[in-house]
């Protein structure tokens, strides 16, 4: 029998990138908020610049709960799912925002209106068959004030390209209009970045520095980026990366209205006979607790959000919470960011002291920024020339067909070339489809005996055609910059577990095809909200975190403004 705790207004399950943002406007408004986090507080001493620990031993993703809940994956329902080797989840106050790459993009306005814009420009038949894509219930303009708020509260550096309709050639001319400039200038460019920008301009493209939740100067009492080179899968040892444990969570704690409970492993959401949620059960130190709450906000990773709903079965929701229409787990997609291209240059790139968020972006081939009339796909990709390298992976570089990757000849090769390779991973429009989904694995469980998530999905014709098209653009860019060897990766097949995992609790006005409404609250359980990329119905060609955070802020603000309607 679970120990019953004192009730609270709002319980947030997961204090990561999304929940860590939502906590602040709620606490600031005077609501009593309990934040349940499976992990603990970490600080700068936990973030040694150590490639073995971060990138080979996958610390700190290997901590307890999330490691035990690693999903399984398979390409189609005809095949057997296998447990994925690595996963992007993390348990700590701040969650994945501790170790992410911190690229903080707004979606393009087109991403909110894929169906209507495609239909308007090319005809309805160009929306791929079998895709379940819908327009978002609102446009970019609706989310803009929340993007703006999060960029300031969290701290995002970058170069604006469109301020209230005024185009600035230094930034992204294809972005939606923003109310004002970024609060900080962009990360600096290396000589190689400059060279890539020059090569892009020579193609007639419009290069610009990407946005990042990384300080480039002193901001809110913390210092600017040290460019130490261990940002990928590592926390920041000088607190320059704006993870929520440094930004919105402390601000929420300072109000006196957020209580952070660490090492709390939430197992189920409870409901009453009317189908309203009443709180959550969690296990901590071997004891089970029930935390009553007037409102529950699920804010864990996409796989965990979906899993929690599917595991929370009741008389009111026999197939899982908020799933009486069978939409939980549907409209899932892993962002297609593989199908990359690798190049070898005849000069050093001097990339040892960089970070994945430091680089040159080209959006000329993203979204619907170019005419698709004579093409066999919709959407596009963001080209990204970053500056990021670490020694073990540098030594493990491709030998570009020059023989085996060990021995004396190889040693000579890497001595000359270890700082001369570059890789484009390419983020591309990825659509949801009828037969790509998440459900509970019938055979694999965590130590509590609860099934883990099973990913079923593969990239389809639209994604593969787009991938080939983007590889052509990437090759053109590398050639212009003087690459001597260029190798294309495969175009993609099965969707594995991804750091960019969208859908599963999609947001939309139609309760028959969406789990949450336009505000992020369940169509079925009115006092249950969902935060994170699991509510996003389209991926765009860029990283999801800022959008997930803007949506979280919006959901939280709506809850504050509609408290009596939702909570009572």
């Amino acid at each position, binding site marked *: 029998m679970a120990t019953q705790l004192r009730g609270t207004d709002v319980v947030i399950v997961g204090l990561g990138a999304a929940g860590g943002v939502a906590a602040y406007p709620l606490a600031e408004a005077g609501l009593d908020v309990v934040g349940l986090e499976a992990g603990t507080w970490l600080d700068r001493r936990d973030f040694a610049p*150590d490639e073995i620990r971060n990138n080979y031993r996958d610390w700190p993703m290997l901590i307890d709960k999330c490691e035990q809940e690693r999903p399984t994956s398979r390409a189609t329902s005809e095949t057997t799912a296998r447990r994925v080797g690595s996963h992007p989840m993390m348990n700590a106050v701040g969650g994945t925002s501790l170790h992410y790459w911190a690229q903080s993009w707004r979606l393009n306005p087109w991403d909110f209106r894929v169906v209507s814009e495609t239909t308007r420009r090319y005809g309805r038949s160009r929306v791929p068959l079998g895709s379940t894509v819908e327009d978002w219930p609102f446009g970019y303009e609706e989310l803009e004030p929340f993007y703006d708020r999060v960029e300031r509260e969290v701290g995002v550096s970058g170069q604006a390209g469109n301020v209230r309709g005024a185009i600035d050639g230094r930034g992204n001319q294809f972005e939606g209009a923003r109310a004002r400039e970024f609060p900080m200038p962009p990360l600096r460019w290396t000589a190689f970045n400059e060279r890539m920008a020059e090569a892009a301009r020579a193609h007639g493209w419009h290069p610009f520095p990407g946005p990042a939740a990384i300080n480039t100067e002193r901001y809110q009492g913390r210092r600017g980026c040290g460019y130490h080179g261990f940002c990928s899968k590592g926390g920041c*040892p000088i607190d320059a990366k704006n993870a929520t444990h440094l930004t919105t969570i402390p601000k929420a704690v300072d109000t006196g209205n957020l209580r952070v409970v660490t090492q709390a492993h939430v197992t189920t959401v409870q409901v009453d006979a009317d189908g309203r949620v009443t709180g959550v059960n969690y296990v901590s130190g071997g004891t089970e607790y029930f935390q009553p709450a007037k409102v529950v906000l699920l804010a864990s990773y996409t796989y965990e959000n979906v899993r929690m709903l599917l595991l929370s079965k009741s008389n009111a929701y026999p197939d899982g919470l908020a799933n009486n229409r069978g939409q939980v787990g549907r409209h899932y997609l892993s962002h297609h960011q593989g199908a990359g291209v690798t190049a070898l240059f005849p000069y050093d790139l001097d990339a040892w002291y960089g970070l994945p968020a430091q680089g040159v972006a080209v959006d000329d081939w993203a979204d619907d920024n170019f005419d698709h009339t004579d093409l066999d796909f919709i959407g596009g990709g963001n080209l990204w020339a970053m500056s990021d390298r670490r020694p*073990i992976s540098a030594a493990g570089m491709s030998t570009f067909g020059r023989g085996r990757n060990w021995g*004396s000849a190889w040693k000579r090769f890497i001595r000359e070339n270890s*700082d001369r390779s570059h890789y484009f991973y390419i983020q591309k429009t990825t659509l949801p489809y009828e037969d790509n989904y998440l459900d509970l694995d019938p055979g694999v469980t965590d130590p509590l005996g609860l099934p883990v998530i099973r990913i079923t999905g593969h990239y389809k014709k639209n994604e593969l055609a787009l991938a080939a098209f983007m590889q052509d653009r990437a090759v053109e860019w590398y050639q212009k910059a003087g690459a001597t060897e260029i190798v294309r990766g495969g175009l993609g097949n099965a969707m594995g577990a991804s750091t960019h995992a969208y859908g599963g609790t999609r947001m939309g006005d139609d309760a028959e095809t969406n789990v949450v409404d336009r505000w992020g609250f369940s169509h079925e359980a009115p006092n249950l909200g969902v935060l994170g990329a699991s509510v996003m119905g389209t991926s765009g060609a860029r990283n999801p975190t800022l959008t997930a955070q803007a949506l979280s802020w919006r959901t939280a603000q709506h809850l504050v403004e509609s408290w009596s309607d939702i909570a009572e």
Partner: protein
Amino acid sequence: MNDDDARERNDSSVISRRDLLRTAGAAGAAALVPHSIAAAAPAEAIEAGAAALPGPSIATAPAPTGPLMNLTARETEILSAMVDRLIPSDELGPGALEAGALRFIDRALSEAESDSAGAYRSGLAALDRYSHYSRGAAFVELSATDQDSVLIDLQTGGATGANVGFVGSSGSFFNMVKSHTWQGTFGDPHYGGNVDFIGWDLIGYPGVRLQVSEEDQRALEADELTPVRRSAYDYATFRVDQ
């Protein structure tokens, strides 16, 4: 290639090197004493707001000698020979053995990679069986050239045959050892490898810095940046009591 060729090509330098390893308790790194890094500018750490404390540096600790904890003498001998062929000591400079990759692997098998101990044991035994089966001699008795050809068979998954018995495939064993050898050569010296920064010097990595100024970056681009000789754990922020 037949067995006679193999013995013929077993030149004296290979034999003497192997004997040296045996004498040294198979710890190839033992012969090398790392340079002191005490001279590393404390300004590096101060600049990053993390002043280096005085005291023994982890990276300057002499490479430990003596038998490995997780492998038998015979297993150690085979692994030494393999690691030595992956990143050899040659005219370009020292290789994986001198960098302490063997000691790194042994420590890892006690800690983060303890799940792999069984794979090492069975893989090294299978390597020796395959060597006998295909080349007529134990792996450590083969010439460098023949050792390389055996390792190519392993890497390509072709090391099969009666009773060879790689668990999974020979390729997965090869890749595991290769990955750990790379970590033990090019990773942070904290874990017992990359002794004397052999790996970082080989690829020109200028070292762990917490703060890299615009001027530092320009110096790097002009090939004028002086390498930093320290482990991440030599910075006060991350110092751990051993």
